[in-house]
């Protein structure tokens, strides 16, 4: 503050004054410090706990489906897990299409985004968004807008870990 009053006293014109302020007083670094004091931080612990619990519940639901399939329908374990994934994807996509999954996501945070439900939701929501722009230029071109990178790096990492497993553990 004293610095400004001195400048005002010496009658430097305001452009110079302004440049001086930008250079000396409010550079990007000090501005960042100032804003970080005012802008609130997200409660990471709370969000983490919510995501942990909700994500765990989704996992529990999947496990229940697997149990039911194995014990009541005599499905082999390997097939039961695949069917469970299909069921979860179907439920998530249906909820997205009915228009309330986004409200759940904004409350449950990453708890619904990280499991397979999030993947289904991301794809379905992109497709709904571009439905009016046609089958090819709309849905086709934008279905993997959000999930394309998941698929790409999923496949790449599958290759990498597959090779590692083949080389070091013998397949």
């Amino acid at each position: 503050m004293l610095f400004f009053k001195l400048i005002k006293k010496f009658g430097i014109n305001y452009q110079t004054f302004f440049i001086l302020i930008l250079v000396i007083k409010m550079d990007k670094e000090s501005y960042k410090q100032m804003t970080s004091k005012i802008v609130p931080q997200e409660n990471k612990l709370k969000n983490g706990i919510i995501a942990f619990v909700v994500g765990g519940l989704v996992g529990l639901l999947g496990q229940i489906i697997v149990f039911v399939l194995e014990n009541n329908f005599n499905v082999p374990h390997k097939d039961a897990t695949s069917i469970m994934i299909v069921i979860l994807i179907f439920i998530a996509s249906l909820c997205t299409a009915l228009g309330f999954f986004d409200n759940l996501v904004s409350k449950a945070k990453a708890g619904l985004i990280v499991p397979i439900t999030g993947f289904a939701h991301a794809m379905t929501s992109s497709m709904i968004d571009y439905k009016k722009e046609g089958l090819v230029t709309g849905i086709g071109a934008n279905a993997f807008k959000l999930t394309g990178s998941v698929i790409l790096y999923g496949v790449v990492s599958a290759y990498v870990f597959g090779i590692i497993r083949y080389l070091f553990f013998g397949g």
Partner: protein
Amino acid sequence: MTINFNNVYLKATSTVAGKDEKEGNFGKLYDKTYDDYYAGEKTFEQSEVKMINDAVNIVFNKAKIKLENIDVVIGADLLNQITPNAYASVKFNRPFLGVYNACASMCEEIIIGSSLLQNKEISNVLCNVSSHNMTAERQYRNPVEYGCPKPKRSTFTVTGSASCILTNEKQKIKVTSATIGTTTDMGVTDIYDMGSVMAPSAARTIYEHLKDTNTTVDDYDLILTGDLGVYGKEILNVYMLEAYDIDLKDKHEDSACIIYQRKKQPQVKAGGSGPACLALVTYTDIINKMMQGKLKKVLLVATGALMSPTMNNQKLSLPSISHAVCLEVVK
């Protein structure tokens, strides 16, 4: 850069708004509200076009003039190629200028319109400004059904459209002066934290306006900023004091903070945003108060973050711009 105007008056204004704004503080003051985001159209973009057309029809009824009397139509919104206003302008069949300065567009329009009115050939200018939560969300962030969790600092794009007619006939509210702002970049890269992005440019524009017009904060009844949000408002107050030694005191209000009832509407987080935010507040509450004589001199500072998802993905920071327009009640 400050311009003084001698013959520019505000003839009539109109506002239409969506459902979230209807539940907000000025819900009853809007000329027309819609119960959903579609406004009876098939897509969000088309509903934005419809909102502009509705607002324009209302403003013509209020001003009791015809479309033929409008010399230039100026339109601004958030979308690429200024799509909604460009499509709406087809129906008007009048000369059209599309302008873009993100959320600072409203004041930019008034500045351009007022400057055009200095010409003798031009006597009426129509300024439209619109934004739509869903179309903006789609273009700048994620698909609308995705519902990505938003941090507390994020703002909620206002759904609505506002029109005003500027004229050179004498009216009660006069546009006396305007300051064209300078683009400012303080190195903020967070696309959710628009308040921090825009506060420095708002401060600079307010400072330059006060300097150029030889006025102080006390000369104004209200300094209304566009869409800084609750945290941006606080940053502006602190920054103004630190960088320019100007105390805004209680003269400063931010339309993002007052457009919604933030306690009842938790989805809006830090407040409203979008070019229509300042317009909806100004053309309802502020104009009413000016007409009633409660406010005499108001400085509107429209703040805009010139955000581009492409440049943001390239790790560049967000520049911002603010323009100021001074409205005064004349006898």
